[in-house]
């Protein structure tokens, strides 16, 4: 196997680790399952073509997110006048993600599932800009600077937008304290 093939394989494996995160972000941007899947595929296609440009030791996940965002912006620029917002379907999550918890304690699993559903619902009902910033920071864990680079705005704007988004999220999750108390039992 040649060096290029080896690099390609390593890159492929590393990139695939982020598929769920990318799909979640694609859903945040598109709010449509089919479009999100197409966007994920387009992102990987672009990444595979461009992975030679990836600077060594740079953040692969952040690079993939930037590719996805650019692909999405490109798409809406060409096909629509602006993003379309539709209601989300009630697709079930992959049960594999619950397996580990389930093996430990079914009661905790149930409470965590309730909490996750509640939080997911609240995040998805945030306005687009706030939804995106919460997903990038609180769910995917990017730093202010990484988010600022992705969104093309100063880190100060990220900070203030995040503060407002979290305030809204807190308001929506007023019942979260109860869940937290139950979890602590």
């Amino acid at each position, binding site marked *: 196997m*040649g060096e290029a093939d080896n690099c390609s394989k390593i890159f492929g494996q590393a990139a695939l680790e982020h598929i769920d995160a990318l799909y979640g972000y694609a859903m945040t941007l598109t709010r449509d399952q089919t479009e999100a899947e197409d966007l994920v595929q387009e992102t990987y296609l672009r990444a595979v073509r461009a992975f030679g440009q990836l600077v060594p030791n740079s953040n692969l996940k952040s690079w993939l997110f930037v590719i996805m965002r650019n692909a999405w912006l490109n798409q809406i620029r060409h096909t629509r006048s602006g993003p379309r917002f539709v209601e989300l379907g009630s697709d079930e999550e992959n049960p594999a993600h619950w397996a580990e918890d389930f093996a430990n304690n079914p009661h905790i699993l149930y409470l965590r599932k309730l909490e996750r559903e509640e939080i997911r619902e609240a995040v998805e009902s945030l306005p687009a800009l706030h939804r995106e910033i919460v997903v990038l920071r609180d769910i995917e864990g990017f730093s202010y600077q990484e988010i*600022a680079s992705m969104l093309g705005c100063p880190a*100060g704007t990220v900070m203030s937008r995040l503060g407002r988004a979290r305030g809204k999220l807190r308001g929506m999750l007023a019942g979260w304290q109860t869940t937290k108390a139950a979890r602590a039992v």
Partner: protein
Amino acid sequence: MNGCDDIRARLYLYLDNELQGSERSTFEMHLHNCRACRLLVENEQLFLDAIRRSQPLRAASPELRARVEQLVTDRQVIVRAPPRLKRRIRESLWQLSSKRPRTISGWQTVAVAAMAILILPVVIWRITRYGDDSRLRRPSNFAVMAADTHLRHARGQLPLEVVSDTPWQISHWFADKVKFSVKLPNYQESSGQEKLYELEGARLVGYKDDYAAYVAYEMRNRPISLVITSDAAAQPSGGEEIKARGLIFHYDMIHGLKVITWSDRGLTYALVSDLDERGQQSCVVCHQGTKDQDFIESLKPR
């Protein structure tokens, strides 16, 4: 940073790991001594942990996973330089060598030639511009400090101590804090022209055992920083010298940022931005009038 209000204002910076060094330790020291703030931080941490636990927000379907897996594993990925680049590199090698180059193939050719092409302009540039007086052309410590401060603020690591979009309020805030007088002009108000920038606020920054004034602006979503100290504390030097309006401006590129420093009437200024060319457009924070356009133009690269 001592009061509970300060702690609450920086709560998310702390939880998001964006507070560093002494600011972080001061924050933690306060938490150690203040139960109310500690509870607040713990509660917010629990809230953020719960949000984080909802990761992944969505899981890719097995079908999508399979499609993408096939895409990344099956595709033959060989990074090739475009033919035009290869031709240019070959031509450059011909010019560099008096003899026809010996046959070297593929990546070796590309790598060697690319290195030569990349390094050559840098070497020529350094020889022609920095030749004998490289020490003189090095950016001043004040310019470097201004660029660092700009970066730290842009990263959210250096919160403003006063937030206001009113120049006189900022000037007033500095009145009893620095040893020199800071008077921010309000050209937009006096000229009645459209406002091209936003004043965000200010804070003090340490420089040479004293304080310098830091003022943050934003223009079209891009941050601009103005750092002011007395000319006794800092003298502009280094970089490229540009004479305009009887003053000497020093232009440097530091950490990819455009830094313009100059002295005028007992004060030394540094203006930092990532705006185009030399970042001269950042001068509008003090020179927005139409009569000042000539001055801003004079700072453009020739």
